[in-house]
C-alpha cells in the first residue's frame, strides 16, 4: 500500500477500493420510505410500475386496484399489487473512542491500517457509494459523546464534509454507546439506514439498549464490528505490561499464560455481541483490520442483495 498522507482528509477514500465497489448497488434490506425517487423499495405497495403479485380482494380494498382482466377470465376479484421505490437516507456512525487507537504505532510503521483508520476508510467509502447513487448519506462520529454530526446530503460535494469530519475526529475518550445511539436516533427523523463502525469495547447492555432504540424507530441498522488481528489472536509473549485504553487498569503479566483465558473471554464477548445484534434484527459483521476493505464491503453488499429476493413485510 502506498504511503498515505496523514493530514489529508481524503485519504479515507481509497481509489482502489472505490473503484471496486462503485459497480455494485447498495440495496437496503429494509424498504424505507422517502420522498426522493431512488432505487430503494418502499414498504408501501402503491402506484408504481413494477408489479409484484395478485391478492384476493378483501372488503375495504380500493376498487381501482381490482384486476378486471382476471375477473373477466375467472370471475374472481383479485387485486394487483405494485411496489414503489423511495430515496435512501443513511447515516454512517463511526466510533472515535480511544480504544480504536490500538496499534497505531505498529500499523503506521508497517503502513497498514489501525482500527480507526480502517473504520474511517470504510465509512468514507460507504458514504461515497451512497452519494454516488443519489442517496443521501450523513456521518456521526462519537466517543464518550457525539463529536461530529454531518446531516445526510446527496450532493457529491458532501463527501468533503464527511472526510473532514472523519479526519478531525481523533480518538480519545471512552465510549458510551447508549448515549450515542440515542443521539443518532434523535438526529434521524425518518426511517433510514444506519451503518455503525466500532470495536464495541464498551458496556454491552448499554450498547444493545441503544441499538434496540434505533431498531425501535425502524431504522435498518448494520453493525461493522472491527477488531485488530492482535485482539483476535492475542499473539503476545514475554513479560508485558498491558496499559488499558479508555481508563482501563494496567496489567503486568506473561501473556502466553493468559492466552487461553483471553480467547475464551473474547469468544464469550463476540458471541454475546453477535447474538445481541441478531436478536434485534441487526446485520452483524465481524471485521479484522487486515481484511481487504473492498472485499469486506463487497461481501456486505452481496449479502444485502441476496436478501432482496425475499422481501419481508414489516
Amino acid at each position: 500500500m502506498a504511503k498515505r498522507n496523514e493530514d489529508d482528509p481524503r485519504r479515507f477514500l481509497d481509489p482502489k477500493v472505490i473503484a471496486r465497489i462503485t459497480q455494485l448497488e447498495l440495496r437496503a434490506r429494509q424498504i424505507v420510505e422517502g420522498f426522493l425517487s431512488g432505487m430503494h423499495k418502499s414498504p408501501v405497495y402503491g402506484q408504481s410500475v413494477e408489479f409484484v403479485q395478485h391478492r384476493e380482494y378483501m372488503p375495504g380494498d380500493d376498487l381501482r386496484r381490482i384486476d378486471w382482466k382476471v375477473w373477466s377470465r375467472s370471475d374472481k376479484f383479485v387485486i394487483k399489487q405494485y411496489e414503489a421505490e423511495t430515496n435512501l437516507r443513511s447515516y454512517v456512525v463511526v466510533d472515535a473512542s480511544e480504544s480504536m487507537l490500538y496499534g497505531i504505532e505498529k500499523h503506521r510503521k508497517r503502513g497498514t491500517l489501525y482500527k480507526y483508520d480502517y473504520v474511517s476508510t470504510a465509512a468514507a467509502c460507504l458514504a461515497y457509494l451512497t452519494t454516488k447513487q443519489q442517496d443521501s448519506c450523513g456521518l456521526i462520529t462519537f466517543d464518550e459523546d457525539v463529536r461530529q454530526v454531518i446531516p445526510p446530503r446527496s450532493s457529491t460535494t458532501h463527501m468533503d464534509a464527511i472526510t473532514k469530519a472523519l479526519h478531525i475526529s481523533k480518538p480519545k475518550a471512552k465510549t458510551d454507546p447508549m448515549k450515542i445511539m440515542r443521539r443518532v436516533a434523535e438526529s434521524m427523523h425518518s426511517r433510514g439506514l444506519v451503518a455503525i463502525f466500532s470495536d464495541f469495547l464498551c458496556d454491552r447492555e448499554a450498547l444493545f439498549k441503544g441499538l434496540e432504540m434505533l431498531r425501535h424507530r425502524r431504522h435498518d441498522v448494520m453493525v461493522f464490528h472491527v477488531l485488530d488481528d492482535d485482539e483476535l489472536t492475542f499473539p503476545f509473549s514475554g513479560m508485558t505490561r498491558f496499559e488499558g485504553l479508555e481508563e482501563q487498569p494496567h496489567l503486568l503479566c506473561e501473556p502466553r499464560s493468559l492466552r487461553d483465558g483471553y480467547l475464551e473471554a473474547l469468544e464469550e464477548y463476540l458471541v454475546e455481541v453477535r447474538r445481541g445484534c441478531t436478536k434485534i434484527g441487526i446485520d452483524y459483521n465481524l471485521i479484522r483490520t487486515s481484511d481487504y476493505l473492498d472485499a469486506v464491503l463487497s461481501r456486505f453488499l452481496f449479502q444485502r442483495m441476496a436478501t432482496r429476493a425475499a422481501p419481508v413485510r414489516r
Partner: protein
Amino acid sequence: MMSFFLNPWVMAAGVALAVSPIIIHLINRMRFRRIQWAAMEFLLKAQKKMRRKKILEQLLLLLLRILLVLLAGLLFARFLGSDPSQNKETRPVLHVIVLDDTPSMTDTGSAVGGKDAFTRARSLITDKLLPSVAKASTPQTLRLIRLSDQGDMLNPSANPDKAPDTISLTTIESVKGLLASEKTAPIHVGIVPGLKKAKELLAKSPGTETAKVVHIVSDMRSADWTRDTEAITLAVQELTDEGVKVHLIDVAAPNRTSDPRPPAYSENVGIVELKPRNRVTAFDKEVEFDLRVRNYGVASLKDVRAEIYVNGAANHFVSVRFDTLPGGQDATLTFAVTFNASQGATMATKEDPLAKFNVITAILDNTGADAIAADNVRHAVVEVREKLSVLLVTRPPDDDKPTNKDGDSFALRLLFEETKLSGTNVVSGTADSLDKLDLHEFSSIYIVNIPQLSKSQVGNLERYANEGGGVGIFLGPNVTVEQYNNLLYRAGTGIMPFPLPAEPTPELTKEQKLKRGILSGAGLSQRVLLRDRTARTHPALRGIYETKAGSDKDTAQKVEASFTLVEIERHWPIARIGKWREDRSLQELYCLPNEQSISEFEARVKKLNDAIKSKYGEPKFEKYRSTIDSILDKCRSLAADPENPMLSELARQLDKLLSDQINEGDASEALLREFWSQPEMAEAKALAQSIRDSSRYGDPLYVARTFGNGRVAVFTIPVGAPWSTWPSGLGLSGWVAVMTELQKYLSSGSSEDNRTLGAKLEASYELGRYKPEANWSFLTYDAATVEKGVQKLPPIRDPMPGQTAKAIPLESTDTGMKLNFADTKRPGAYFFTLTWQKRDGDPLTAPATKPEYLATAFNFDTELEGDLKRLNTSDFSRVARGAEEIHSLEDDSWLGVLEQKPTDMSSGRWIYLLILLVLIFEQAMAVRLSYHHKADELETFAPSAAAAMAGRTTVQTAEAEVATTNESV
C-alpha cells in the same frame, strides 16, 4: 556440614545456583514491554480466571528447576548421606575368609575347559578381595580357613597365640602362593563348621576395638544351604548379632545374576551307593552288589555303563548297564561277583590283613553331562574266608545227639555241610559255647530249641549281634517261656523280637490231621504263607523272590508250591498284639494259615454278601452278577458247611472273588477287577480283603529283625522234629531255599552304612578282649588317573608294603573298648588289625593272641556333593538372615566398602533416576506452560475469532442464530 560432602564447595555453588531460577524469574519481571491495550476487559477476566492455577503451575515449574539444580549440586558435591561416617570404618578390620574346598568346587560350570569354582575362588581372593582390602586406610588383618578342616591356612601350626596376618602386598603374594598349591578336599563339610570356626577366630579380637568381616567364598549350592537350615541361620545370626559383617560370595559358574529365577547349574551323575549284600563270604560263593546311581541333572541319560574291578582288575564277567537314567532320579542295578583264591591281588602273605579282603571298585563311564569326576568311582570291601563258620547251639549231646536224624539241628547241619552251603564250616556247641568261644569268628549263630541261656550268654549273644553278627533262633518244645521272655525278650529290649505265649499249640487230633491232609500226605493248601507282598524284597527272602537276569524265574513259584507239602503240627502261637508289632526294624515274613473254624466266619461272610448285593442292583453291574453270585454262594456254603472245611478254602474263594490270584486264562478275573474298580464297591472290597486276610493268615512263622548292626531271625517252630517234618518231608525243596536265604542273610556281615569320606568309624569291643592298640592300613585303586577301559587299576597303599603299620589306640571305657577312627579323607578301603588276647575262661586250645580284622570302605559323598543345584538368590535372605547381599564374581560394587572408599550418592542409581524423573517432569511442565501455539487452539477457544481470521463471514453457530431469528421474525 562440610563433612557431608566430598566436594563441599561444589555444593555451595549448587546452593547458590539453586536460586538462579528465581533470579531469572525476577529479571524477567523487571524487563517487560508496554502495550497500550484496548481489550483489557478480556485480559483482566482471563487473569482473574487463570491466576491461581497458573501461579501454582509456574511455582511448581520454578521449584522443579530449583530442585534440579540442587540435585545436580548434590551429585557433583558427592553427598555422603546423613551419616557420613556410616560407611567408613575407622577401626582396624579383621577379615576371616572361609574358603569352600569341598569336592563340588571342582565344577567348571557348563563351559568346557572353563575354570572350576575353586580356581575362581582363588582368583577372587588374591586378585580382588585382598587387593581391595589392602587399599583401606585402617589396619586390615586376615585369617584364611578351609571349610573342609576349618584349619587356618596362615597358621598351619595352629598356634593359638599367633596374631592374624596384616594384609599387605607381601601377604597377598604369600596367600597367592599358598592357594596355588591348594586343592579341593574329597570330603563334604557343611557351612556351619566354617561359620563356627570363623566365630571362634573372631572372638579372640575384642569387638569394640576391631571391626570383623567374614567372607564365605563358596559355590552356594542348595544341598549345602538347605540342609540343616536352622543351624546355618543360627550361626549367621550369632555372627551378625556380634556386629560381624557376613559376605556371601558365589564363585560358581555361570555367574549369579539378579534374576529371581534359580541360577543355572551343571549336570552331574554319580554313584550314590555300592553295597554288597554279604560283607563276609567264602571262596567261590557269589556275592551280590547293589549299585545305585543318581542323575542330578534335568535331562534323561541313556546307556550309562559301569565297569567293575575286583582288586583293581577289570571283571569282564560282570556287565552293569542302565538303559535310561531319568533326570533327578536314582536307579539301582544288582550284579554278582564270585571270589576265588587266585583273585586276591593283594594277598602277599596270609598275615597281611589285605589278604582277607577283596576290594570291589565300580567306575561309571563318563556320561558327558558330568561335572564332577570324583563321584563316578566307588569302592566296597568284602571279607572272603575259606569257609564261613556257623555256630549251632543245641542242647548238650546227652539230650540231643547231632547225628540223630530227629535231632534238633540235624537238618541244618546237613544243609550246611553237605548241600548247597558247602562253603560253611559248622561248629557245634551248647549254650556254654556262647561264653567260651570268641563269637566274632562266626558268620552266624543258630540257637536251636535251647531251653534257656544264662545272663552272660545272652549278653555275649546280643553283643555279637549288635556288632554285626547274625543270630537265628528256632523255637521248640524245650523252650522255657519264662527264661525267654525275661532274658531274651526283656520287654522288647532283648534279642527276641516278641514275647512267647504260655504254651505252644496243642497236639493235633486225628481228625484235624486228616482234615489238613497230613496223614494222607496230600496237602490242599499252602501251609506256609508269605505274610505280605513287601516281604518279597526283604533281604532274608530276596533271593527267592527277586527276578534278575540269569536267575530261575520259577524259583518263587516252585518254593511256594512246595509250601503246600509242609507239615507243621505244632508251633508257638505268637499273638499279633503288643508293641513288637510297631517295631519298624521287624518284619513278619512267613506265617501259618489260620486254623480257626470256618463257622466263625459265617456272620462276616453274610455281611459281605449283603454289602455286595445291596450295591450291585444297578444295570451297570449286570454283567458281573453271575460270576459274583457264584463265588459268594460258594463262600456262604463253605461258611455254613456243617463238615467245617479248611478256612483256607474260604480264603481261596475270597482270593478268587478279589481276583488277587492270577489264574491265567480265567476270563472272570478281568471282569472281577473291573467290578472292584467301581467306586460303589470300595467299602465291600475293604470288607472282603479284611475277611480274606483274617481267614488266610494265622500265627507268625518266620520273623526277621535288625539288632544293632546285626540281624536276628526267629522261627516259631523247631528245625524239624518233633513238631514239623518240613526238612524231612515233601516240602524239603522250599525249606532248603528258605534256609539258604536265611544263612545268607545272617552271615551277610554288619549292616554296613554307606560310609562317606570324612565320617568317623566307631566300633565297640568287650573290655580287655583286645590289646589296647590296633593297626590300620589303607588301600585304594586309583581310577582318577587312568584312562577309560584300562584293565588294571594301580593300587595305592598306605603304608607301603614293608613299612611300619600305622597304630591307632583303642579307647577303654567303663562299658568296653572303642575304636574311633576319623582319618577318612581318601576314598578306598580301610583295614584294621586288632589283637585278640586270651583271658581266663577261654578254651584251653585258644592261642594267647591272634589277629582279628575289620575292614570298611569310605567313599565320596555323592548324595551331598553331587547335586550342584544352586540356592535361589531370594532364599539367602531367609537362610542367612542378617548377612550382606549375596555377591557374584562379576559384581565388584561391594569391594568399595572393603576399600573404605566413602560411598556417595553418585555411586548409587537412585540419584540419577531421581534427576531423570525431575528432568522429565520439568520438561513436561515447561512444555505445558510454554504456550506453543497449536493450529487449532484459536478454533477451540475462540471460534468466532478463528472464523474472522479465516475470512469466513461468520461461524456456524452464528448462521444458525440468524436462521432462528429470521424464523421468529
